[in-house]
């Protein structure tokens, strides 16, 4: 019963944060709304017994990635008059919703045909660090290595993009 109540609280917070991101005019307000969504999603991961992903969501997403985005927004020092003029914004919202609501209803109907499982907290180390780590380094070893190469490429790319080109100019 408590898990049901917590699910609705976290789901409401997540949707409210997502709507705040889409509706907010200044990206700083949107970023703070997105942090609310990330933390609510971390709570939902905990309800799904994903202990490791719950911690990673808080540390990597709500901590590292969002602080990077907030840092860049503050670094660019965006004022109200720097923001792009979005006069027909409400028209785009209405058009986008008219396009997306049928897709969403179709997906929700497809989801409803799945067998229902009560989401009680699973014990026995489900989603713990050791179990997920064992799976990651045995069955998913090749994708893990590919992801490490992707991170290396992103690192090199960021250095190349951010490096000053004094020799060219």
């Amino acid at each position, binding site marked *: 019963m408590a898990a049901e109540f917590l*699910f609705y609280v976290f*789901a409401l917070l*997540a*949707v409210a944060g*997502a*709507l705040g*991101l*889409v509706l907010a005019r200044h*990206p700083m307000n949107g970023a703070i709304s997105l942090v609310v*969504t990330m933390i609510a*999603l971390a709570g*939902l991961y905990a309800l*799904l*017994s*994903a202990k*490791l*992903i719950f911690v*990673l969501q808080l540390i*990597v*997403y709500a901590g*590292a*990635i969002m602080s*990077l*985005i907030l840092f*860049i927004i503050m*670094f*660019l020092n965006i004022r109200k008059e*720097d923001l*792009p003029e*979005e006069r027909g*914004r409400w028209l*785009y*919202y209405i*058009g*986008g*919703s008219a396009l997306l609501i049928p897709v*969403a209803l179709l*997906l*929700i109907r497809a*989801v*409803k045909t*799945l067998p*229902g499982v*009560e*989401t009680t907290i*699973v014990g026995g180390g489900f*989603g713990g660090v050791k179990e*997920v780590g064992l*799976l*990651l380094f045995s*069955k*998913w070893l090749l*994708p*893990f290595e590919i*992801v490490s190469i*992707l991170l290396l*490429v*992103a690192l090199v790319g960021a250095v190349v*993009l*951010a490096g000053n080109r004094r020799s060219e100019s």
Partner: protein
Amino acid sequence: MIGDYLVLSVVLFCIGILGVVSRRNVFTIFMSIELMLNAANLAFLAFSRLHETMDGHVLAMMVMAVAAAEAALALAVVILLHKHKGNLDSNAFSLLKG
């Protein structure tokens, strides 16, 4: 119920698409993409819980790594574009238009 988690995932993903198609601020577009990645993660974890296997957890970790790489590169590109164009309008960044 698992279905509720998947419905929430669908709703968050659609809100993310709405943010991408209806906004012109590059930061909001970028954060909407992050929101869509998070909705996909929620679906992975819900299915993982449904089948009681942990492959979804590993996939969610991979998605997080991809999101981190994407954040680093996209923010570097946004800084460069802001330096060149002086604003954040995605309509101004049409350098590849013939």
